[in-house]
């Protein structure tokens, strides 16, 4: 119960902010706002939590909860003072309502309920999550929660095998919920994992709307590798959520209002990706490039929105940079790697062949046996649409393609055994891109004109 309260406070606060900013909204936009408020609430609350811990306010102390509550009450009061937006542009097109849409909605509902049951059953069987969850994310959360009083939490930075350079969105969020609960409940990371999984699907469904939304949602959940990762309590699904949040707000117009606030939210979501996992830094940099190109080439409005996007990302990105420069050790991927070594690995064709072969093998088997080659097939469709349609779909496909390319480069230059590195991680990396990829394809199919 108290775990739910801890998660509802930031979600409701940001929900108020979105409601006041977006104005009169349909049920579809309301669901999108709930999804955005939930995941951004977790993100922002983790920043407040880590700030309190660094200031010496331990999560095991009552002062932590009181301070956290005070911050959210102030934020809520400020959000309520925002002038309520006027009715959004009613000329924005909505998806065609098809006669059989109710059947698709019912089918998606059945898929979602069974998927939720699968996730709950997995969580009951593995309450501490999968290997990386308890060895990295929840372990860091325990250090933050238990070691907050005397600074002992900083000791986890010396545990090399626990990836101490990984950002703290998930661990700080879990520690915060434990603080509210007064104990280390396994329900905390389970609830957080479920929220991110549900929000990922909800954002795609609500961005597209109508029949395409229901089909896209079913396609996302039908990929068993994605579904298995939702209750794993790792950071890949949260990262996928922030990627799709960024894309749906920026290009999919999910909030149905081309306001500066929407672009600030998109910027914040992209920066949250970097606060979730190191791969998120690639997303932030790519969105920065998009913002700069839009500002340079596009009319004055686009420059204005690009500035808001950067403004939304900046505070969280500063937190990420502070964590990387002041707290965390260097990543095992770059430590001891000179430029000469990196270049020589990039020029080694055998390494390229090995990585390409392994990535292709895993991509084909991703979600197999029921969905053999689903990821490559959907990727090819996205690439075809990028060429055929251009505009927002092309930009989204390029962003996702460049993220995949960055993963490829990391594999080629890895200091670890290539086979071990690829086989233990590539499936989860594809999970990160999956909801965004489905959104991209269905936006290309959608009769709703996406914002360019």
């Amino acid at each position, binding site marked *: 119960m108290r775990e739910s309260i801890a998660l509802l406070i930031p979600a409701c606060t940001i929900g108020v902010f979105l409601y006041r900013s977006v104005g009169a909204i349909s049920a579809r936009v309301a669901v999108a706002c709930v999804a955005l408020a939930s995941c951004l609430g977790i993100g922002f609350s983790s920043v407040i939590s880590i700030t309190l811990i660094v200031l010496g306010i331990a999560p095991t102390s009552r002062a932590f909860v009181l301070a956290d509550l005070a911050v959210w009450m102030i934020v809520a009061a400020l959000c309520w003072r925002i002038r309520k937006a006027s009715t959004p542009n009613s000329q924005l097109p909505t998806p065609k309502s098809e006669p*059989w849409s109710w059947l*698709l909605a019912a*089918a*998606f509902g*059945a*898929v979602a309920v*069974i*998927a939720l*049951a*699968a*996730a709950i*059953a*997995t969580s009951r*069987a*593995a*309450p*501490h999550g999968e*290997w990386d969850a*308890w*060895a990295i994310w*929840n*372990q860091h959360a*325990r*250090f933050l929660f*238990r*070691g907050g009083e*005397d600074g*002992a*939490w900083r*000791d*986890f930075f*010396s*545990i090399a*095998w*626990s990836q101490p350079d990984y950002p703290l969105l998930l661990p700080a969020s879990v520690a915060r919920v434990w603080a509210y609960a007064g104990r280390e409940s396994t329900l905390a990371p389970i609830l957080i994992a479920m929220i991110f999984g549900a929000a990922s699907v909800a954002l795609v469904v609500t961005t597209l709307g109508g*029949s395409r939304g229901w*089909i896209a949602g*079913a*396609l996302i*959940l*039908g*990929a*068993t590798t994605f*579904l*298995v990762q939702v209750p794993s309590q790792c950071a890949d699904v949260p990262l996928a959520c922030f990627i799709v949040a960024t894309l749906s707000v920026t290009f999919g117009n999910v909030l149905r209002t081309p306001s500066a606030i929407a672009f600030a939210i998109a910027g914040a979501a992209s920066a949250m990706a970097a606060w979730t996992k190191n791969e998120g830094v690639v997303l932030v940099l790519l969105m920065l490039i998009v913002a700069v190109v839009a500002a340079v080439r596009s009319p004055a409005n686009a420059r204005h929105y690009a500035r808001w996007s950067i403004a939304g990302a900046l505070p969280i990105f500063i937190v990420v940079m502070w964590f990387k420069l002041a707290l965390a050790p260097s990543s095992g991927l770059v430590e001891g790697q000179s430029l000469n070594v990196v270049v020589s690995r990039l020029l080694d064709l055998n390494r390229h062949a090995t990585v390409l072969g392994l990535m292709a093998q895993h991509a084909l088997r991703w*979600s197999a046996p*029921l*969905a053999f080659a689903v990821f490559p097939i959907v990727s090819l469709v996205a690439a075809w649409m990028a060429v055929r349609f251009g505009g927002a779909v092309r930009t989204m496909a390029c962003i996702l393609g460049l993220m995949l390319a960055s993963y490829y480069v990391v594999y080629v230059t890895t200091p670890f055994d290539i086979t071990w590195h690829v086989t233990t991680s590539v499936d989860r990396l594809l999970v990160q891109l999956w909801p965004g990829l489905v959104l991209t394809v269905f936006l290309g199919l959608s009769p709703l004109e996406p914002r360019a």
Partner: protein
Amino acid sequence: MRLSLTRVVSLIVVVWSLVSVIAASRSAIARGPDPVASLDTEFRTLSRALPPSVPVGFLRYESDDDRADRVMTYYVAQYALAPHLVEKRTDLEFLIVAPDAPRPGGDVRLAGFVPVATSKQGFSVYQRRAQ
């Protein structure tokens, strides 16, 4: 009702999704118990024997120390005993010893240590004897 290509593809996607999630839920229900939960409980009972904020040693297994299950045991020990640092060393005051880690018939690495706590599954905390 005429079936257009769009409707056929949509039907395939939806039916495939239903089959996938049903298969996933059956796998999840059939999943066995999680060894991490029981190991975590074991090690957490030992934490009461440890003073706060001290690093703790972990006795390496006599053989196959890098076997997957033994690596997991060590990692879970760290997970359970956080914020203690658990390191594979024997030069610290406290030492975590797994039941099958010491050499049979006496392990010289435990010379100078006495057991101070033992869990149900046989994991122990050893403390260095006062000089």
